């Protein structure tokens, strides 16, 4: 049986004027189907590069990347960091774009998109343009767009990174609800350890650049998890300790 995402001794990086910058160093990672794995690491360590390699946007120097057993070629839905919605399309139009990416969409898909927005509490905003929405709403639309693409593996790059603490907590609950209903494989990059602990099945800690996996924390706890609960706080502490160790 193959996993949803397999990285085998992947080395990757970017050419710069000062020479090749190595970002991932023999990084190996296995993500099972329908698993939620969160990736944390010191800033600039290569979390985004890990996603770009998995999405097939960046070819690794060496090693192997497999998405459902194949070389990545459009099998993943990737949500880039920052504002990635098309500003000239409404929320509904942006959601639909996820299917238009694969070809023409019919009336049925449009109805489906509208129901999708309704199901996850965005019906009132279907006709709003991104600039008319709050930051939290925009990220909800962008997340739903990623879920609406007909893909089983989702790669989310700091989807809640730019939000204030309150909105962030609200969106974490909301995102968990969406995921529990749609059951897709998720790889989430975040710098918020607490977020990683309350959402995922497993937390992967990366070393500073060039990155490989420093530690893995399986979380066998039922959801939803309380941030204030002792088990969450204990895990948070040990993950932060792992991060700090690698920072030295």
């Amino acid at each position, binding site marked *: 049986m193959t996993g949803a995402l397999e990285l085998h001794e992947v080395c990757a990086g970017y050419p710069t004027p000062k020479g090749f910058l190595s970002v991932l160093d023999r990084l190996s990672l296995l993500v099972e189907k329908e698993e939620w794995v969160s990736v944390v690491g010191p800033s600039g360590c290569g979390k985004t590069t890990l996603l770009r390699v998995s999405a097939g*946007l960046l070819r690794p120097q060496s090693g192997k990347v497999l998405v459902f057993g194949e070389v990545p070629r*459009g099998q993943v839905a990737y949500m*880039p960091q*920052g504002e*990635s919605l098309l500003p000239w399309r409404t929320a509904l139009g942006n959601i639909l*774009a996820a299917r*238009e*990416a694969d070809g023409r969409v019919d009336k049925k898909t449009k109805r489906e998109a509208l129901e999708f927005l309704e199901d996850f509490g965005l019906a009132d905003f279907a006709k709003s343009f991104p600039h008319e929405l709050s930051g939290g709403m925009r990220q909800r639309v962008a997340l739903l767009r990623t879920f609406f693409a007909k893909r089983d593996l989702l790669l989310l790059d700091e989807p809640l990174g730019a939000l204030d603490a309150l909105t962030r907590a609200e969106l974490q609950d909301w995102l968990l609800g969406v995921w529990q209903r749609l059951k897709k494989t998720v790889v989430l990059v975040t710098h918020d350890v607490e977020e990683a602990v309350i959402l995922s099945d497993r937390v992967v800690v990366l070393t500073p650049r060039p990155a490989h996996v420093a530690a893995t924390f399986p979380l066998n706890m039922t959801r939803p998890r309380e941030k204030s609960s002792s088990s969450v706080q204990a895990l948070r502490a040990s993950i932060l300790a792992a991060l700090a160790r690698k920072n030295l």
Partner: protein
Amino acid sequence: MKRKAEFLWALAVVGFLLGVWEAVVRFFRLPPYVLPSPSRVFLTFGQDFSLLFYHASVTLAEVGLGLGLGAVVGLAVGILTFYVRPLRRALTPFLVGSQVIPVFAVAPLFVLWFGFGIWPKVAVAAMIVFFPVAVNFLDGLRSLRPELVEFFQALGTPERRIFFMVRGPAALPFLFSGLRVGATLALVGATVGEWVGASRGLGYLMIQANARLRLDRVFAAILVLTLLGLGLFWVVGLCERLLLRRR
């Protein structure tokens, strides 16, 4: 309220300048073959209206065709230089060169090649228009934030569809700023083309009137040209607002 005030101010400025002009002509008793008074120009504008209208329609047709042709070529060059990077550097001297050459220098050549009809003027107008369109559209394509495209690239969307869904729409405002610049310059280009060799058009009318010292008619033609330029600018702006009203 604010727009109305701005309009009244503009009107007042124009009225004042025309008043000064009229006063100078009357005070110094300038003959109309040296400088016609604005009242005389307006009179001629009324008397020659059908003549001016006819020649203006020819010029407008040349500019319209030139604008269309220039926009199509400009778009093609913009897209080509975006996707074929080595071509960008190779073409730059030619692109810039085509703008450095004075219109007066090439207009006679175009007349030689394309005859005395409207085509040499269309060619001149197109040559002027294509540059701002190409450069602006290329800038628009290049300034796109990569996040907008990466979502689709990861989904394996073919580049052709990404162009029509993302890149093209994102670059449209840039295209329009190129067109706006081009539209007014194209009018100059077409008129110059008519000066060099034509039997119709506002430029031709001005040359003829000038030779007969009918400066009132020259000024009336300039008035029409100004109106055409404003009209074109407004039409391009209108198209832009209609197309981009949702942003």
